[in-house]
């Protein structure tokens, strides 16, 4: 061997390591200029919907139930103006084998790894995905290694993340538990190089294709139950894969008019790579610290071109607070009789608010839940927050300051999803494309790519480029 294993040396081998570990030559999708052929990438390396359904049936994944949340709908209608208050439905993804929708993503990656002769799979994750990869890997006789950011420099970790690590190990995975820092990626690369295992990245076409069944199923299930497709679907958003796959699946079901709403927990002001901030947040995923950077620059992921491109599919993006999500988690248990994990309820908190803007005969679907248990539970997480000096109180959630306070709404009427400026986010994405590629002039082909990528039109892109003094 004698390979240089220093940080710089391993990071500089990123491309060659990834090519082997994912088995995709991404250069074949690149256009001349700044863009790449997204649909070609999805078609060539992905599987079609019927193949995915079969793979997932083999892995006991999917076909999760849809529940109508009648009591939460009643409360929403009491708070809404006359005639407002959409019917709220929930797709219970917690009933997948590993307790979250991530089983869908893992199932395809693990299947693909097995088919291509890999002996094991490696995933970097905050936990739900790790559990999913481990769970699917044991079913197919592959060896899972999960790499997880767990502790701060004092050795303390969030109860939620400790529980997720436990779950990965419960399925027979090797779990590499790291302290805070983005150099987790260095450990990830080293492990791929040492083992020649498959990179079960969250961001390959396999992972995203695995989520398409979620969108497809929910569109079909709602049509069966109510006679029509839902007006809106709300998706908890972090790296963008949940939203991308769900939206693509909804389109494949023919529900082209369904509006896709992203929702994240507002963690503004907290630095995701900070040893100090790490244990001052109560959400380790589904938050703006991943949601916004991945929306405006999807290719920050662990593959050259991410298949998770929420920017292409979202119609609207809202945030809710940690306190609002804890409130709705308690409400879901207390009046719907469904106890599920807090982070997955981010979209439910947003849905409760957005339903009040919609007409009574309209339908709103919350597209996931996740499992709950010791550690991964509002009482465990709020106890931990208090011990870390976070003020927890009831009141107006708009006054919550991430890292300093968690404000549980003192009435359900105070749950109010806050809109982010999607136009601004799209402009920010265009700006990042220009900065990354260091160009001051774009071809017509480049323009086409940006229009498609941002789901906008020629005028919008041209105006944005003009603001940046970039010629077309």
């Amino acid at each position, binding site marked *: 061997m004698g390979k240089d294993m220093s*940080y710089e040396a391993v990071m500089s081998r990123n491309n060659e390591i990834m090519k082997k570990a994912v088995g995709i030559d991404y250069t074949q999708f690149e256009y001349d200029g700044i863009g790449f052929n997204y649909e070609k990438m999805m078609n060539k390396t992905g599987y079609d919907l019927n193949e995915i359904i079969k793979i997932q049936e083999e892995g006991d994944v999917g076909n999760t139930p849809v529940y109508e949340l009648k*009591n939460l709908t009643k*409360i929403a*209608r*009491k708070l809404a103006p006359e005639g407002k208050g959409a019917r709220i439905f929930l797709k219970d993804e917690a009933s997948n084998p590993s307790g979250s929708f991530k089983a869908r993503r893992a199932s395809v990656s693990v299947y693909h790894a097995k088919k291509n002769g890999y002996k*094991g799979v490696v995933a970097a994750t905050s936990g739900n995905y790790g559990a999913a990869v481990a769970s699917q890997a044991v079913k197919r006789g592959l*060896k*899972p*290694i999960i790499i997880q950011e*767990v*502790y701060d*420099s004092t050795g303390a970790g969030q*109860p939620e993340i*400790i*529980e997720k*690590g*436990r779950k990965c*190990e419960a399925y*027979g*995975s*090797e*779990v*590499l*538990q*790291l*302290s*805070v*820092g*983005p*150099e987790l990626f*260095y*450990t990830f690369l080293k492990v791929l190089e040492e*083992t020649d295992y498959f990179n079960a990245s969250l961001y390959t076409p396999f992972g995203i294709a695995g989520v398409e069944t979620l969108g497809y199923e929910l569109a079909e299930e709602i049509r069966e139950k109510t006679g029509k497709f839902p007006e809106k679907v709300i998706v908890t958003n972090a790296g963008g894969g949940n939203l991308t796959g769900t939206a693509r699946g909804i389109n494949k079901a023919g529900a082209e008019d369904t509006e896709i709403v992203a929702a994240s927990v507002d963690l503004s002001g907290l630095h995701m*790579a*900070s*040893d*100090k*901030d790490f244990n001052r947040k109560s959400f380790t995923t589904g938050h703006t610290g991943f949601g916004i950077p991945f929306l405006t620059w999807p290719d920050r992921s662990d593959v050259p071109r991410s298949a998770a491109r929420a920017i292409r599919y979202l119609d609207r993006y809202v945030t809710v607070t940690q306190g609002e999500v*804890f*409130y709705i988690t*308690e*409400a879901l*248990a*207390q*009046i719907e009789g469904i106890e599920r994990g807090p982070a997955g309820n981010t979209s439910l908190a947003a849905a409760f608010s957005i339903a009040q803007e919609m007409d009574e005969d309209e339908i709103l679907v919350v597209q996931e839940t996740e499992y709950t248990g*010791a*550690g991964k*539970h*509002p*009482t*465990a*997480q*709020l*106890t*931990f927050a208090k011990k870390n000096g976070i003020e*927890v*109180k*009831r009141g107006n959630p708009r006054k919550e300051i991430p890292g300093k306070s968690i404000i*549980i709404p003192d009435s*359900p009427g105070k749950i109010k999803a806050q809109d982010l400026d999607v136009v601004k986010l799209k402009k920010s994405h265009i700006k990042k494309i220009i900065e990354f590629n260091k160009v001051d002039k774009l071809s017509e082909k480049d323009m086409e790519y940006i229009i498609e990528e941002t789901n906008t039109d020629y005028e919008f892109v041209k105006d944005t480029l003009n603001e940046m003094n970039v010629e077309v």
Partner: protein
Amino acid sequence: MKKAKKGDYVQIHNIILEADERSENLPEETKKVPLELKVRGFLIDDEAQLNDQVTIETYIGRKIEGKLIDISPTYVIDYGEVVKELLPIGRELKKMLEGSE
């Protein structure tokens, strides 16, 4: 001193990057501490005590070296304490529902 025998389930610790080897673009508080790793597995050495340099075999059979930091490590997680800010929510909502019947 606690001792572990071959085959015991243990936890080891490693420094992956010393503070001065870490990535450039980090917040100050992260840059001044090392990047650490903890892994659990089964002890390969015949016998060891805490702080010894040992080798373990993980669940999937990989061998990893490191400093022994725990023998029979458990996961300390629970439901925390009663959170009085959450307790009233159920009854408040049920009262609202009664009014709507």
